């Protein structure tokens, strides 16, 4: 019994080692995805072309414009001479963002009055819009804090009092607005789902295509040995890929794990169980690897779109948001972001852990049952 399982697992590892496609999926894809999602999405959102209409044209307004530019999120594209010219620049797509500073901006600030700055944002890309508004408000807050601190200091009060105005935490847990923070948990949950699913399904379907499965069925191998022989190796590869992604995220983007590594590991395994189960399930209904791939995509695409990996779930219409509760990735992504970024534990995460556990255990049990029936 152990001999048979051992033979299965050993054979699978030799095949993994010899297959470039599998190796690439395990070793290269995680880092590539991380770079792709980490950097590509970063560059989309920063360096937004910005048009300025500076009616004040004083020290304070120029300082504010400089602060915008220095933030890295805005590139000053040019200066407009009227409000309508600003709007036109956005309409024409020359600028994503327009900044309007009213006359006597500096005077108002000096007198301790509210300085009203208008920001017009091209809302056609929700990612751009949210980033621009967050970034702009951060810039403004920071600038306000500096001004207040300076004026308070002039009046002889210490810095302590100035802290009261600092409203910076607009973007909770992601102060630099780096998309890597959001993307790393996303990439990990994608890898754990996609890689485990596709590699497990391929491993079985490949044997069906080659005819080795039929050969195996006529040996004394039990179907559960066959199943474990497929599941164990791909648990190891998925874990390897996950660790690689986390290391890369840490080295390249400085994103570590704020919470418990043990909890992270345990819940990742739980999620992985579901992915492996889906892979087995797919393998029982696919005759070819192409079919398996198609079916994998059928699970993948809704997961990517709905889980909050690409688009924040908060901005989704109600019905879509309910739909997103059907994909396990939604729960796992929430859990992962919770543990990695917020450092929270089970006390806060259990409402997501419960449905995830339910899903994973149900899918694995179902696939195990189906696998036994289809193979035997």
């Amino acid at each position, binding site marked *: 019994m152990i001999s048979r399982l051992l033979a299965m697992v050993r054979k699978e590892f030799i095949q993994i080692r010899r297959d470039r496609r599998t190796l690439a999926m395990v070793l290269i894809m995680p880092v590539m995805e991380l770079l792709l999602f980490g950097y590509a999405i970063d560059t989309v959102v920063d360096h937004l072309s910005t048009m300025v209409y500076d009616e004040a044209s004083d020290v304070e307004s120029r300082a504010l414009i400089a602060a915008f530019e220095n933030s890295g999120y805005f590139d000053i594209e040019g200066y407009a001479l009227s409000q309508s010219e600003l709007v036109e620049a956005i309409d024409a797509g020359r600028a994503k963002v327009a900044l309007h500073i009213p006359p006597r901006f500096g005077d108002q600030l000096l007198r301790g009055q509210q300085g009203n700055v208008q920001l017009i944002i091209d809302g056609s890309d929700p990612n751009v819009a949210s980033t621009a508004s967050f970034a702009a408000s951060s810039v403004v807050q920071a600038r306000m804090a500096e001004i207040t601190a300076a004026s308070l200091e002039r009046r002889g009060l210490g810095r302590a009092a100035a802290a009261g105005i600092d409203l910076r935490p607009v973007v909770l847990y992601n102060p630099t607005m780096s998309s890597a923070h959001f993307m790393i948990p996303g990439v990990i949950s994608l890898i754990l789902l996609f890689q485990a699913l596709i590699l497990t399904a391929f491993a079985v379907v490949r044997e069906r295509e*080659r005819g080795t499965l039929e050969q195996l069925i006529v040996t004394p191998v039990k179907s559960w040995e066959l199943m474990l022989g497929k599941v164990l190796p791909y648990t190891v590869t998925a874990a390897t890929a996950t660790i690689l992604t986390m290391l890369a995220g840490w080295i390249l983007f400085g994103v570590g794990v704020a919470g418990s590594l043990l909890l992270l590991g345990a819940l990742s395994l739980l999620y992985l169980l579901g992915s492996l189960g889906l892979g087995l399930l797919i393998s029982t209904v696919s005759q070819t690897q192409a079919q398996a791939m198609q079916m994998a995509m059928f699970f993948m695409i809704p997961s990517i779109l709905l889980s909050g990996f690409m688009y924040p779930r908060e901005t989704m219409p109600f019905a879509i948001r309910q739909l997103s509760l059907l994909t396990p990735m939604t729960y796992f992504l929430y859990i992962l972001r919770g543990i990695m970024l917020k450092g929270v534990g089970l006390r806060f995460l259990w409402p997501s852990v419960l449905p995830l556990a339910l899903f994973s255990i149900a899918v694995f049990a179902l696939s195990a049952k189906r696998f036994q029936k289809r193979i035997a």
Partner: protein
Amino acid sequence: MATDAIIDVRNLTKRFGDLTAVDQISFSVGAGEIFAFLGPNGSGKSTTIRMLCGILRPTSGTGRVLGFDIEREGEKIKRGIGYMSQRFSLYEDLTVWENLEFYAGIYNVPRTRRRERLEELVAMAGLTGRERQLAGQLSGGWQQRLALGCAFVHQPRLLFLDEPTAGVDPISRQEFWTLIHDLTRQGVTIFVTTHYLDEAEHANRIGMIHLGKLRAAATPAELKRMVHGRLLNIACDAPFEAVAILQTMPEVRNVTFQGNDVHALLTDEGAEETIRNSLRQGGVVVHDVQPITPSLEDVFVSLIAGAE
């Protein structure tokens, strides 16, 4: 029912929906025999083997393999047999040695004996020096012998070989049969399927299967005697016309071209003289009519013709 039979099958039937792939077949195979299952593609050979190996449930009928019931004791059967599936199903990305080692693990060959056993198999398959070559890089003949080695790793008493020589060059086929005969000398029983008629001559007994029905099961000599004297070779000046005439005769069961000659298979009522007369009346000049020893192909054709 023969008690010492390695395989014993009664009225075995398998239906897939409306299709009856195997239709009420009965036969038995004795220890040390080479039993060849001969039939064209789609005649039900693989389906029969699958039922005998305990991986496909018969629709009806019974069977015992190595004394075990094929329906209820599949697991016991699997431990005692070796099976080589229709395409030599090797792991192409594993080396010769790794393939053998894998099956040694699957069949639980004791670790202490494993190395020795694997070396024996490598030598048997003539693969010495190629142990580290990937199975996918071997030529058809080598692959075929490696597959046999894998199926034989646990020294089973019974080997099922499903079209082991399909797509392999004639020399490799010859070598393969030599290997099979060596195995039977060690007391191994072989159940082999093929659609090569010439190959079946290697067998002690042949089962001829067509459209799921077992038409005959006998030694090659017995099979040939079944048609002996009823098969004529006709040499004449106009073979096409001869065939046209012969086909209309009720005494002629089957006509085929054989080069410039014509082979005619007669029914029991047919006689050489009637044939000569009919042809002469039809304006065909007959040079010679000779009763001939039928080939297995003639036997097969006659059995099928008889059934239709």
